[in-house]
């Protein structure tokens, strides 16, 4: 057969390819001629490998399975085994899997043929102003996947944990607070990025960050972020006398 007429990427996987071969050979799925089908299957895989095309592991695994079934069918049967031929047919599991796979392949086609929203049917996209008045537009729906993804994104962007460095850097945090305040003096705002040179050492970023947190805690600085992942901006916050209230705050930032 012409192996080149078949392209592996046209098949979902080995089960799909096998279904195709069984159809093409017009044989019964419940009585697959293993030698014939296995030979054709292997010829296709070989052809692909000769062409240096990547053959996914699943296709190779199925090749091994087919060879195994074929060899088991060559073994002589005892009389007992013939009586229970149905269950002992080495092909039984493969046939079951093929029929099961075909069932869902068919169901996928049927589902796809249903009138689909935004393909065949259209609903309104613009909510009524009467409705949106009540809720902020930034609201998003949440799923468990969203939750994990949110965490993953935070972690991807966040610096490494520094729990053990805090004490070591205590002094320089205090120094850095003074420096930040000096930089901020007389300015309307300051980008967090501007607080250190490009390629600043990791410890320097951390110290600056801690200084910033301290300043927030002391209410000397407010932090704003443009958008979700926009850059962070520092704003000189309230009058100095407000800072005296800090001790009465029940919450602490935990960096003292």
């Amino acid at each position, binding site marked *: 057969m012409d192996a080149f007429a078949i392209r592996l990427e046209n098949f*979902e996987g080995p089960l799909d390819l096998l279904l195709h071969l069984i159809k093409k050979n017009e044989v019964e799925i419940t009585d697959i001629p293993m030698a014939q089908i296995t030979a054709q299957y292997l010829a296709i895989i070989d052809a692909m490998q000769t062409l240096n095309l990547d053959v996914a592991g699943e296709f190779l695994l199925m090749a091994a399975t087919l060879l195994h079934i074929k060899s088991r069918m060559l073994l002589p049967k005892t009389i007992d085994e013939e009586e229970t031929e149905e269950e002992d047919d080495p092909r039984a599991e493969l046939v079951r899997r093929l029929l099961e796979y075909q069932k869902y392949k068919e169901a996928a086609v049927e589902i796809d043929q249903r009138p689909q929203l935004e*393909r065949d*049917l259209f609903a309104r996209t613009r909510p009524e102003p009467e409705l949106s008045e009540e809720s902020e537009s930034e609201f998003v729906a949440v799923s468990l996947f969203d939750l994990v993804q949110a965490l993953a994104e935070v972690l991807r962007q966040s610096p490494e944990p520094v729990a053990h460095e805090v004490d070591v850097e205590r002094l320089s945090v205090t120094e850095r607070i003074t420096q930040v305040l000096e930089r901020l003096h007389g300015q309307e705002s300051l980008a967090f990025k501007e607080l250190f040179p490009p390629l600043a050492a990791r410890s320097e970023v951390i110290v600056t960050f801690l200084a910033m947190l301290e300043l927030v805690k002391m209410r000397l600085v407010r932090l704003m972020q443009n958008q979700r992942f926009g850059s962070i901006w520092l704003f000189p916050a309230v009058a100095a006398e407000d800072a005296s209230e800090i001790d009465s705050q029940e919450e602490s930032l935990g960096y003292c």
Partner: protein
Amino acid sequence: MDTADLKPLVEALIFAADGPVRLERLVEVIGLETEPVAVALAELERDYAAQRRGFFLQQVAGGYQLRTRPEYADDLRRFGRGRPFKLTRPALESLAIIAYRQPVTRAEVEYLRGVDSGSVIKTLLEKQLVRILGKKDVPGKPMIYGTTRQFLELFGLTDLSALPTLREFNELLPEQTLATEGIDVESPLLVEEDAVDLSAVPGEERHDEQS
């Protein structure tokens, strides 16, 4: 308030909503008994089916939503609407397996398809057609997946029992192709001509009972 007064109010609420609206929600907002609201809704649905209009009232995901008729899909696409989900064959197959067999693990999907399905499941999660239902109480505690409300909305299904019946085969079927190009204008509208059985307004999705 009689049915003639209720119908336009129900219609306004469904029109303004940003998704399918359940009967219970309509009853709650309108502040009347279920019965008159259900009657108004059923009449509205009948009106839409009988009149020649650009859109119709579809029962979907346990609620009601106005949607354009499928015969106008081409015009609407020309109009610039239409951001169809590009579902590939692997995605559709995995989605079908998850829809019919939920709650299902990734390993089960992969066994049935015979191929690694991690990235396909991730795509389905991102498109919010599939969600994590929790973990299976077996060694290794694998995650289990099920379909979402968005899945029902996308394919215009009232609930999971409205999925096409899975056929059991003992033989091979002729080759089928996916209807991803163009639309099937022949396909009937999903409007049920008979009066709606409102007592059957579906509850939650099937997996809730299974968990």
